[in-house]
């Protein structure tokens, strides 16, 4: 073997290693580094003190996102919790609060105001988890998390097996009555990426709902999440949910 031949072989091996390298799977750390290359991480902030249960957010969401108005499914909803002095907890969400809460009757019970310890409304929507179990269980790669943290569903690829609907601890997924594929809140992906806010945030008259970018330290939502007392739903599941609540109660499930 002369020197020229040796260099050719070494060069070929280096090129081959480089070519193989482009096809390898990403290690978790490398994937993480790629996620961080996005300078946006969408997060949601809900103030349960401000919510009055008018349900304008639910109405706006259904109309904005083409969810059949009278179908018993919705991407976002508002729950009412009435905690009584005798320890009973009443919770309901008639039609997902599409028409708001216009009656004090909760779970069929006429509640005497003097018996109420505390009562409040809790808007719910997809938590856009950092570790979304719904994505993990999808057998075909029809649902996925984008670089900016939003979990989306590919309607052309979903086979309708329903695993993701069962996997979500927050119950935010359902079958779309028209497309018969898994459906979920997208944080209005089409709006937030075009400089608008989500339909529910815009429709809320009381600023109970806000959306922000966790990677921008000057974002008012980020400032609240970082400096004030906020909680998330079902933290113990390890899904790293990204909808933060002010004034959450232990009775909220």
């Amino acid at each position, binding site marked *: 073997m002369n020197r020229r031949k040796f260099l050719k072989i070494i060069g070929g091996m280096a090129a081959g290693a480089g070519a193989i390298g482009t096809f390898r*799977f*990403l290690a*978790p750390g490398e*994937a993480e580094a*790629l*996620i961080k*290359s*996005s300078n946006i991480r969408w997060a949601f902030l809900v103030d349960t*003190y401000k*919510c*009055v*249960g*008018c*349900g*304008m957010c639910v*109405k*706006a969401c259904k*109309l*904005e*996102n083409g969810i059949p108005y009278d179908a018993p499914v919705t991407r976002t909803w508002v729950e009412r919790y*009435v905690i009584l002095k005798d320890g009973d907890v009443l919770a309901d969400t008639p039609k997902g609060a599409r*028409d*708001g*809460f*216009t009656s*004090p009757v909760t779970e069929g019970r006429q509640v005497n*105001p003097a018996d*109420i310890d*505390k*009562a*409040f*409304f809790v808007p719910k929507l997809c938590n856009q988890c950092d570790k*979304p179990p719904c*994505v*993990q269980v999808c057998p075909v*790669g*029809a*649902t*996925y*998390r*984008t*670089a900016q943290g939003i979990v*989306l569903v*590919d*309607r*052309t*690829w979903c086979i309708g097996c329903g695993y993701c609907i069962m996997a979500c601890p927050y119950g935010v997924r359902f079958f779309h009555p028209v497309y018969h594929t898994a459906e979920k809140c*997208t944080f*209005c*992906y*089409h*709006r937030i*990426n*075009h400089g*608008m806010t989500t*339909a529910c945030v*815009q*429709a809320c*008259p*009381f600023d109970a709902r806000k959306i922000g970018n966790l990677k921008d330290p000057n974002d008012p939502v980020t400032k609240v999440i970082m400096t004030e007392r906020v909680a998330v739903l079902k933290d113990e599941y390890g899904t790293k949910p990204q909808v933060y609540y002010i004034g959450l109660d232990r009775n909220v499930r």
Partner: protein
Amino acid sequence: MSHTWKPVFVVLAILAAIFIARTIIVPPKFGIWESGYMYGWHNKANEQFWLNYKAKYKGRDYCNGCHPDKYSAIMNSPHAIIQCEDCHGPAIDHPDNPPKLAIDKSRALCLRCHVKLPYPTSHRNDLPGFLNPDEHNPGIECVSCHNPHSPVLGGMR
């Protein structure tokens, strides 16, 4: 050909068929992408579908473009916090499509906020409202007397 080799060729043919079918069916942009193998396995082209989804709610600034009188009226009233489209419905491509918005003038719409619910730890308790709305002109739409753009008593119709 030996009968022992035939099944081997059959299996190879099936594998080849599966491989060819897969390259045809799976979209070219199907891959792992940013969120890694566990969470990022998808067809990249689908992100564009959601990006291109049509927004229907335009916000009050869009309304102000043609209806500045209505805009300034409600913005100077206690109802300034309410978006036009909450009652008027989504603008979509108004005035082209739809040429006229279907306004929700129902009592039920007003009662979403103006039924008094005595919940001491909720902002709902602070809103002006009826404990029993059926005692106040039942069956008549609120907007036949009250002006939602100026809901103070001086703005009565």
